């Protein structure tokens, strides 16, 4: 008994300090994670769920609707690959262009590049709907000036996904520019000076000094942008709702529809687990990177 009392006295404050956040963490995060593993193997009903083994997964991968799932995966992967590649290249180029400028000018530009992300994706997506409007939208007006036939950007199933992708990649990734700029700041000046003595051009310096030395940041950004791209939802939901005829449905959009249009909670949970596995694989890479160098 005395041992317990002294242990309690010794540790009570520690438990007091972690209690509030651990309370919410266990109830609203750990427990739902545990529950999603159960739900994925159940057919959910308000009055008692039924175990169905692997049927939800069978449904997803081989069932009648499996075509939609693979179609959805295709969209998500295409979106992720294009967006991540363009974003990384854009951020690298922009950060490289910013490098020789005065610090205050740099931070002005960084602010400008980050400003679009300050408003929400919902807001920006509403503006894109207007820009993409087939009759009075800005883009079709531009095409008209160039004597190009107007496009039905978000309405034509053949190009709707590309329109969503275009709306994403036209905006310079502000976070990538900020992170790259910070990393560039820590590259030793002498390296560039040595290259200048040898008469290297700005482009060669960028290619042979900046890019190789930024590799950790590049790897890191690639992983976090890929994870974010696999979770794309807001802009798809607002701009197209996954349509037309599922032409823009992504994984999270599919989970949302399965859960809240079909009310098939079991299958939605199984789909969420598939997303979880994909993201966990990328997260493992991210975690590896983080444990090798945590930078602030």
């Amino acid at each position, binding site marked *: 008994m005395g041992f317990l009392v002294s242990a309690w006295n010794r540790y009570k404050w520690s438990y007091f300090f972690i209690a509030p956040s651990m309370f919410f963490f266990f109830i609203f*995060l750990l427990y739902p994670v545990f529950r999603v593993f159960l739900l994925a193997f159940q057919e959910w009903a308000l009055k008692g769920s039924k175990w169905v083994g692997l049927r939800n997964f069978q449904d997803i991968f081989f069932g009648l609707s499996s075509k939609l799932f693979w179609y959805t995966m295709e969209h998500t992967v295409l979106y992720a690959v294009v967006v991540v590649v363009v974003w990384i290249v854009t951020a690298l180029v922009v950060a490289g262009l910013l490098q020789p400028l005065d610090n205050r000018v740099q931070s002005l530009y960084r602010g400008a590049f980050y400003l679009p992300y300050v*408003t929400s994706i919902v807001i920006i997506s509403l503006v894109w709907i*207007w820009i993409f409007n087939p009759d009075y939208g800005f883009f079709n007006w531009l095409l008209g000036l160039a004597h190009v036939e107007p496009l039905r950007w978000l309405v034509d199933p053949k190009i709707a996904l590309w329109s969503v992708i275009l709306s994403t990649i036209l905006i310079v990734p502000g976070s990538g520019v900020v992170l790259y700029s910070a990393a560039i700041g820590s590259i030793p000046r002498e390296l560039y000076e040595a290259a200048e003595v040898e008469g290297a051009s700005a482009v060669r310096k960028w290619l042979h000094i900046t890019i190789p030395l930024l590799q950790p940041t590049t790897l890191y950004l690639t992983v976090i942008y890929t994870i*974010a791209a696999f979770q794309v*939802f807001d802009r798809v939901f607002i701009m197209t709702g996954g349509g037309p005829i599922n032409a823009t449905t992504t994984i999270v959009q599919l989970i949302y529809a399965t859960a809240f249009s079909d009310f098939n909670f079991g299958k939605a949970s199984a789909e969420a687990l598939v997303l979880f596995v994909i993201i966990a694989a990328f997260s493992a890479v991210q975690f590896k990177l983080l444990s090798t160098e945590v930078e602030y």
Partner: protein
Amino acid sequence: MPVTLSQRRTARQRLTSGLAMTAFIYGLLTMDALVSLFPLYWMFNTAFTPGSEVIKLPPELIPKNPSLENFHLVVKAAPNIWRWGANTLFIALVTMGLHVLFDAMSGYAFAKRRFPGSRVLFWLVIAALMIPGQVTLVPLYIMISDMRRVLTEITAGWPQYSVIVEAASNYGAVILPGLADVIGIFLMKQFIQTLPSELEEAARIDGASELNIFTRIILPLSAPALAVNAIFAFQRYWYAFLWPLVVLQKQEYYTLQVGLSFVYRSEFGTNYGLLMAGAAMAAIPMIIFFFAFQRYFMAGIRIGALKG
């Protein structure tokens, strides 16, 4: 040593090529910035263009007759828009405030105190960083629905309080799961473990209580991290869309993001002037907030990068 003609020429050439280079850099960057900022500019442009002129070709690049007509229209069409703004602010502020306090408390415990279970718990926190929010969407929805049903049943006997119950049920559904986020714990732990332990120990020898050590020493020293965590949390809950969309049941309790998507899906969805005015109203507070706290936003990006 006399400067030869050829040397002079290269110096001059270098100068002009340097100038051309600078002009080129500025040109490219400015073009990039203009394209990036175009949607925001177009939103304000359309919002201030009176209704009939919005759907006109060619579009006006600057409103010829700027007016607030669209803003009046959107307030009339969606009278709840002020309420949505207040809801969003309320939810974001409450979640932020509790996060700042709770994250600092547990960050301090994990950084500076040893207790049985601390390693396992912190390992769980790190593991949870990898779990995307959508994974828990369905089980959380079921849990919250159950909690709401129980709340309604318990309070069924007091119909006079039904308004309060309804408010608690809607705000709670958004706020409570928001408090489970662990990124702030990680951030605070990383920061607090860089603080020297001598101050704490000296205070402990002087007989200061554990609570005082936390409030008088740890909290003031952590001010920069607290600010970053605050802004970062505020942004997360201000922008949140999927979860509020799923759990908010009545228009009065919508957040701005959910409300705007609702206006778009309503009969006013094709009135772009009205829609852009609504979007602008929702965007302005965050834009002001950004310019006021730009430094912390930029620091938040680096932490945001951790979560992805």
